[in-house]
């Protein structure tokens, strides 16, 4: 196995990102979509940190910290929405959640 270079990390990031999108596209359940969304965030972070390490400056890691913070904020709002949907419709099956009432 040759020495591990930047491309290995980028490839891994890409694979993770695609799996995330696959999850978002195919899952019916709202929370499963949120889970796959977290996957995509992680893929982005991985690339950022890989870049930060290989062209040596710290901005990538700083940006990664910000991305984690934003992902946290996004996830809270996402779960809040899911809970209120669950209160109204007793299930969180995205296909049937289409009324704008209430």
């Amino acid at each position, binding site marked *: 196995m040759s020495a591990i270079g*930047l491309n290995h990390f980028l490839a891994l990031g890409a694979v993770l990102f695609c799996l995330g999108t696959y999850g978002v596209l195919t899952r019916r359940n709202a929370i*499963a979509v949120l889970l796959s969304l977290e996957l995509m965030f992680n893929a982005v972070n991985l690339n950022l940190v*890989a870049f930060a390490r290989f062209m*040596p400056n710290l901005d990538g890691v*700083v940006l990664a910290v910000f991305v984690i913070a934003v992902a946290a*904020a996004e996830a809270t709002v996402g779960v809040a929405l899911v809970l209120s949907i669950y209160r109204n419709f007793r299930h969180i099956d995205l296909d049937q959640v289409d009324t704008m009432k209430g």
Partner: protein
Amino acid sequence: MIYDPNPVAFWLLAAMVAGCALAVVRARKLFHAGLALVGTLFAVAGLYGLLQAWFLAAVQVLVYAGAIAIMLLFAIMLTHNMMNPDLKSLTTQPWTAAALCLMLLAILLGGTLSSTWQTAPDTTLSPTWTPKCGFQVAEAIPSVQALGFRLLDPFTLPFEMVSVLILVSLIGALVVARRNPALPEAPEGREEKAP
């Protein structure tokens, strides 16, 4: 100081990341998907360690796996009646989505692998950079102190903006998820409350 990560560690962690991510996407039970997500987060934290971003690894475990994933697990537990896991309505048209994602993967890999990045892995991180307040930065590669000063020095505005963002999302989430305020008080119980 030449930086070369241990290949065995890298391939092990990469396999774990891919495996857990697949599990998140394909898991039969929703709770297993949650667990798999936590597995991915820990594997990615390991990769950050490999890339010597120690602080980020700790933050990832603490914030991501410790708060966000746990919150999602709570959401799963709250919304999911325990007795019958929803096996039936799991995925919609899986094959078309898989084809789409593979095409996306091909494009991404084509783009990244072919281009040449001007990297200089064998130098320590920004040795010359010293923050204005004159406190000498430890020489070690991305040490916590260096990251700390980096966060506050050039990135002060984004740092404050993110804290405001988190506050706003917190309050927003509370308002959205709060139970309907017009909950009728139980007639009999209420006026019996202790004086």
